[in-house]
């Protein structure tokens, strides 16, 4: 018998089932179909100004920084300001996302390059798919628009988030993913990012910038 058959029949023997019992099959199918939400904390159940404030508070708690801008072109100014403030070189790596490429970067001295990171970019810029206010978490999806490597290889990661994509909880994020990509969850990778990279592996002391970005800056585009 193959390992697969062996394991499945061992499980069935232990559980005392055949695998063909109708109530079990329908219990599974019902659960997959209805996807019950369980206990969703009240903390995230706010909207409007309060939701933006919650995201900001939760993101800052985990050592990310947050800025708000009123219109798309202000993103360019905010990125330039951020790089200057931290004495970073005026260079930026980004993917093919039209919402970022459509901005007029020539208005600043920032040198923009495109594509995934090969590991030597200091600053990366991405556009978030969404965010979860409850925990200050960004949701990034893979693809040419926002390559996954930009989320991890640059030392400084700047992420643009539209206020309309700011959600209360993870459950709302799953709904948004299903609505966008269908139930098959089309992107290869969804990165939920809560603050910059860190490690506590040496004497339990938290140090930022383990293997991923040392800094995470969120720019919220208010609608």
């Amino acid at each position, binding site marked *: 018998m193959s*390992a697969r058959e062996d*394991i*499945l029949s*061992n*499980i*069935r023997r*232990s*559980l*005392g089932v055949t695998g063909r019992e109708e109530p*079990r099959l329908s*219990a*599974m199918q019902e*659960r*997959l179909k209805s*996807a*019950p*939400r*369980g*206990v969703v*904390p*009240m*903390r995230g159940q706010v909207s409007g100004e309060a939701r933006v404030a919650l995201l900001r508070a939760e993101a800052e708690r*985990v050592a990310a920084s947050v800025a708000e801008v009123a219109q798309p072109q202000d993103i360019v100014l905010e990125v330039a300001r951020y790089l200057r403030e931290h004495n970073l070189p005026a260079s930026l790596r980004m993917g093919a996302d039209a919402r970022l490429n459509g901005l007029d970067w020539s208005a600043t001295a920032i040198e923009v390059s495109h594509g*995934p990171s090969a*590991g030597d970019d200091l600053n990366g810029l991405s556009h978030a798919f969404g965010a979860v206010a*409850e*925990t*200050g978490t960004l949701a990034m999806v*893979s*693809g040419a628009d926002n*390559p*996954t490597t930009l*989320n*991890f*290889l640059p030392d400084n990661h700047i992420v643009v988030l539209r206020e309309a994509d700011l959600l209360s909880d993870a*459950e709302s994020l*799953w709904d948004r993913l299903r609505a966008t990509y269908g*139930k*098959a*969850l*089309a*992107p*290869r*990778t969804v*990165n*939920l*990012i*809560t603050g910059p*990279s*860190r*490690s*506590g*592996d*040496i*004497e*339990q002391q938290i*140090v930022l910038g*383990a*293997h*991923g970005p040392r800094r995470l800056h969120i720019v919220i585009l208010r609608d």
Partner: protein
Amino acid sequence: MTIHSTSPAFKRNAHNALADKQLQQALGNVRAGFIDKRTQAAERLPEFEALRDSARDIKNHVLAHLDLYLEHYETKVREAGGHVHFARTTEEACATIVEICKAQGARTVTKGKSMVSEEIGLNAAIEAAGMEAVETDLGEYIIQLRGETPSHIIAPAVHLMKEQVADDFRRIHTHLDADRDLTQPEALLTEARMVLRKRFLEADVGITGANFLVAETGTSIIVTNEGNGDLTQTLPRVHIVIASIEKIVPTLEDAAQILRVLGRSATGQDMSVYTTLSTGPRRPGDVDGPQAYHVVLVDNGRSAMLGTEFEDMLRCIRCGACMNHCPVYHAVGGHAYGWVYPGPMGAVLSPSLLGVDKAGHLPNASTFCGRCESVCPVRIPLPKLMRHWREREYERHLAPATFRYGLGLWAFFARRPALYKFATGLAMPVLGYLGRKAGRFAKLPLASGWTDHRDMPAPQGKTFQAQWRERGGRTR
């Protein structure tokens, strides 16, 4: 390749650990760090206890339908372009992974942190096949340099002080300036980041574990703080996921429920920094990500635990809260347990996976204080399960002779109430008199195993039975 176990030598291991001053200092970090962080995180979320119930119920539902969810998960992974492999034993799991690596002509294999890969002894198997396995989690990297196994399931190098890590880095990273300053954790982390960045970029295959396998979508989820798991699975041509069969959850909603108790129970974080969902290989048009995606599902004794009194253990989500709150773990650390899984969860799981003859006495290393159960996010009755193992060990005459004689001696008196009353009535005042000054004994004849590392309290007042009678307790 199974990792060599020294679990049978727990007593000697524990003895050595108690005498190890450096280890005792490092274990102070466990006592100080984890407990407060978890308490604060739990208190900040009013729904925390309700979420623990929810997490327990989800896991129980999965275990009762495990065969069906595994089949559904497998179908979904295939639909997304991935491959699923089943492995009955550690040998099958290692052989499957080595084969995939070899077919790629791999030279370097990077690894994210995975306890099941420790369980199957994967690094040794990869090295034996002529390839290099590189651990990329900072703690795992440190212990790999030292040739050690993890002493904690989420903080593998928690038994070490930073000076020891600095010495190891100087010993191994000989291409760097010998006079560099490595006194602070920041400097050590920066050096590991620089050294490992190169290894990430040159790796041919990346292996990660999985915190969840989502049946609904065929997605594997990893939860990390460093980002090493993501570089491990994004940069190489091939991503292999190794996971044990009970990691399945039905839907993303179910994963979200358990995620809310996982980070809080483990490190006191509401969310760990990176929670990553991976489904199949890169899509057409993607500019990064692996070209092939494999999942190796490991049984290694778990299917046999279903339907037994140890089934509850399969709910474990490997957060480490039980060991963080365990007075025995605090005293002896993880290595004394002699195998991959330490602390209360290890004391229950190791006998199931290794056999009661090899690890059956680990459950004896418990004070039955119940703290592990009180903090377990999926409410595993760990003390009860340890008691089951004790009973089995005793039934199979595996308990040590001194223990059996001692119990026999006690039973002799216990069956003769008059004699018992007489003997304890005699011993209590004598011990109480001898220990009246300090209220405790730093040394007692025949009890050095106790008094070498802690004091024995001196009896205060009368025996339990005498007090019971005085307070009008019922007697038969």
